[in-house]
C-alpha cells in the first residue's frame, strides 16, 4: 500500500515536470499563458463571469483611485437617499460595459440595485417595448419595424469595434470588406488571392446567437451565408485558435484583441487600422453601436433615471473605455 502511494506521487511529480518542460520548449511563456487563459475562458461561463467581474472590480478600483486622487468632491456625491431596483435586459456583447457601469454606479448609489439580464439585443428591445424592464440594451440600432409607433428611444453610449484577426506569421495586413465577405462565404479559399502566401484559409467564426457574430455578419453582409471551418464559443477560443494556426482568420471584439497583441494581428480594413480613434470618427467600418433603449410611454423611475444619466455622463467615459468600448459622450 505504501509503495503504491509513493509510486503515485512519484509518477505525478514526473508527469508535472514533463508538462512544464513541454510548455517551455513548445512555445514562449507569453503565448503559453495566453492559451491557458483561453482555456479558462472556455472552461465555463462561470470562469467568464468571474473574469468579467474581476475586470469590473479593476475598473472600480481604478475609479476609486481616481476619486481619491481628485478630491473629496466625488466622495461627497455618495447618495444613500435614492433607493430602488433598476432592471436592464438585452445584449450579451454589452456585458463588460454594463457590469463596469453598474459597479461604479453602486459606489455612488449604494442603495440602488441594478440587475442585468443577458438575453440578447432582440429580447432586450422586446422587453423595453413591453415594459418588462426599465432599460433595454441593444448592441445594434433599432430596426424600423421594432419602433413603428415611435415609442422607443435609442441612446448610444458607446461604440464597439470588431477586429479581423490573423496569425502573426501571416503577411496580409489589409483587407477590404468585400474580401472579408468573400472569405467568409467560401468565395475566396486561398490566401494568395488576397495578397498573402499560397495556402488554404481556415475560416473561424462564433456560434449562432453570439452578439459578435451578429455584428460581424450584419456589417459585412454575410448573414446566414458564412461557411466556417471552426465555430467557437468564446472570444478567447477564437484568439487562441488563430494564434495556433498560421492559415486562420477570425473576428473578435477589439478590446479583447488589444489585450493580446502578442498573440494575433488585427488587419486594417480598407486601409484603416482599428483603434479607439478610428472607431470614434467612424472611419473603421466594422463597428456597431451600444445602445440604451428606453420606452417613451413609461417614464423612468428615479433610480432608473439616475442610472441612465450615469451611463451617459461624460465624466464616466473612462469606465466605458476601461471596459473595452469607445465612449460616445466625452
Amino acid at each position, binding site marked *: 500500500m505504501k509503495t503504491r502511494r509513493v509510486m503515485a506521487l512519484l509518477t505525478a511529480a514526473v*508527469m508535472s515536470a514533463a508538462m512544464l518542460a513541454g510548455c517551455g520548449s*513548445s512555445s514562449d511563456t507569453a503565448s503559453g499563458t495566453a492559451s491557458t487563459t483561453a*482555456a479558462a475562458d472556455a472552461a465555463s461561463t462561470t470562469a467568464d463571469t468571474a473574469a468579467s467581474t474581476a475586470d469590473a472590480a479593476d475598473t472600480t478600483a481604478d475609479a476609486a483611485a481616481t476619486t481619491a486622487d481628485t478630491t473629496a468632491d466625488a466622495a461627497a456625491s455618495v447618495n444613500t437617499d435614492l433607493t430602488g431596483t433598476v432592471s436592464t435586459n438585452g445584449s450579451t456583447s454589452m456585458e463588460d460595459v454594463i457590469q463596469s457601469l453598474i459597479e461604479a454606479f453602486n459606489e455612488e448609489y449604494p442603495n440602488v440595485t441594478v440587475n442585468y439580464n443577458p438575453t440578447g439585443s432582440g*429580447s432586450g428591445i422586446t422587453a423595453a417595448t413591453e415594459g418588462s424592464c426599465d432599460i433595454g440594451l441593444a448592441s445594434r440600432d433599432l430596426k424600423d419595424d421594432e419602433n413603428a409607433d415611435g415609442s422607443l428611444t435609442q441612446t448610444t453610449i458607446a461604440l464597439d469595434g470588431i477586429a479581423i484577426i490573423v496569425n502573426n506569421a501571416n503577411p496580409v495586413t489589409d483587407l477590404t470588406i468585400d474580401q472579408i465577405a468573400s472569405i467568409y462565404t467560401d468565395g475566396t479559399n486561398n490566401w494568395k488571392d488576397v495578397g498573402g502566401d499560397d495556402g488554404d484559409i481556415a475560416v473561424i467564426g462564433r456560434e*449562432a*446567437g453570439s452578439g459578435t457574430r451578429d455584428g460581424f455578419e450584419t456589417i459585412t453582409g454575410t448573414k*446566414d451565408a458564412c461557411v466556417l*471551418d471552426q465555430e467557437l464559443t468564446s472570444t478567447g*477560443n477564437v484568439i487562441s485558435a488563430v494564434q495556433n*494556426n498560421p492559415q486562420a482568420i477570425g473576428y473578435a471584439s477589439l478590446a479583447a484583441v488589444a489585450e493580446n497583441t502578442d498573440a494575433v494581428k488585427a488587419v486594417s480594413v480598407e486601409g484603416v487600422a482599428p483603434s479607439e480613434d478610428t472607431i470614434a470618427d467612424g472611419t473603421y467600418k466594422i463597428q456597431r453601436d451600444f445602445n440604451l433603449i428606453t420606452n417613451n410611454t413609461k417614464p423612468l423611475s428615479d433610480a432608473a433615471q439616475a442610472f441612465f444619466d450615469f451611463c451617459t455622463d461624460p465624466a464616466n467615459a473612462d469606465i466605458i473605455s476601461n471596459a473595452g468600448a469607445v465612449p460616445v459622450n466625452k
Partner: protein
Amino acid sequence: MSTLSAAKTKKANSPVELFMHGLLTVFGLTSIAFVIFITAFLVVSGIPAIGKIGFTNFLFGTVWKSTAADPKFGILPFILTSIYGMAGALLIAIPVGLLCAIYLSKMAGHVLAEVIRSAVELLAGIPSVVYGLVGMIIIVPWVAKSFGLASGATLLAAIIVLSIMVLPSIISMSETALNAVPKEYEEASLALGATWTETVFKVSVPAAKSGIAAAIVQGVGRAIGEAMAVMMVSGNVANMPGLLKSVRFLTTAVASEMSYASGLQRQALYSIALVLFIFIMVIMFVLNSAIKKKKD
C-alpha cells in the same frame, strides 16, 4: 436491508427506529427520484420543439441553421457525428486498452505495474477541459499538418482525444476482470501444453469476457457523453460528418448554443438533449442485454 429490518428487536417500534427507517428509505429512493425528474424534464421540454419542427425534419434533416431568417433544425449531422466519433474512439481504445490490461494483469512486474496503474489513474482524473486544451494545442495542428488542411479541428482530432479519454476506464475495468480469472484455468491450460500466448488469448480473455464487455460499455458512455473536450477540437460546424471535416456532436450542439439561445432555438436544444438521452439509454440497454445473454 432484509436481514436488519427482518430482525425485530424489542425496540423496533420505538419512534427513533421508525424515523430512521423512514429517513433511510427516503434517501434510498432519491436516485430513482432524480432519474424520474430528469426524464420528465427532458420529455416535457424537448417534445414541443419536435412537434413544431416535425419529427422527420428534426431527426433526418441534414441542415442546421438555428438563427437564420428561415431557420432549419435538422440534427442528422449531429447524430451521425456522435456515432462515428464514438465508433472511431472505441476502434482505437479497445485494442490499446485491452492489450494494456493484459500486460498489466499477466505480464508486468510488480513495480512497473504499480507505476502504470497510477499513471492510468491519473489519466482518469484529468479534467476533460485539459484534454481539450492539449488536443487544441497539439493534436489539431498535427492533424492540419499531416493532412495538409487549413484547419485541423476535425472529426479525426476529436476521435484521437476521445480515444485517450476512454482508455482509463477500459484499462482498469478489463484488468480487474482479468485478475478475477481463477488461476486454475490458466494453470490447467499451461499444464495441457498450451503456450503462454495461447493461454492468455484463448483462456484468460474469454473467461473475463463479461467484465471486458462492461468496460467497453462504460467507454461508450464516456465517449458519447463527452462535451467539453470535443467542443475544443472538433470545429463545431454543423456539417455532415467526414473524417477530415469540421463537425458538431450531439453534446456540443447543446452546449455551444445554449448560452444565447432563445425561442424555438432554445426548445430545439432541449430536444437534442432528449435525443441524446434516449440514444444513450438505448445503447446501454442493448449492450447490457447482450452481455447478459452471453452470460446465460
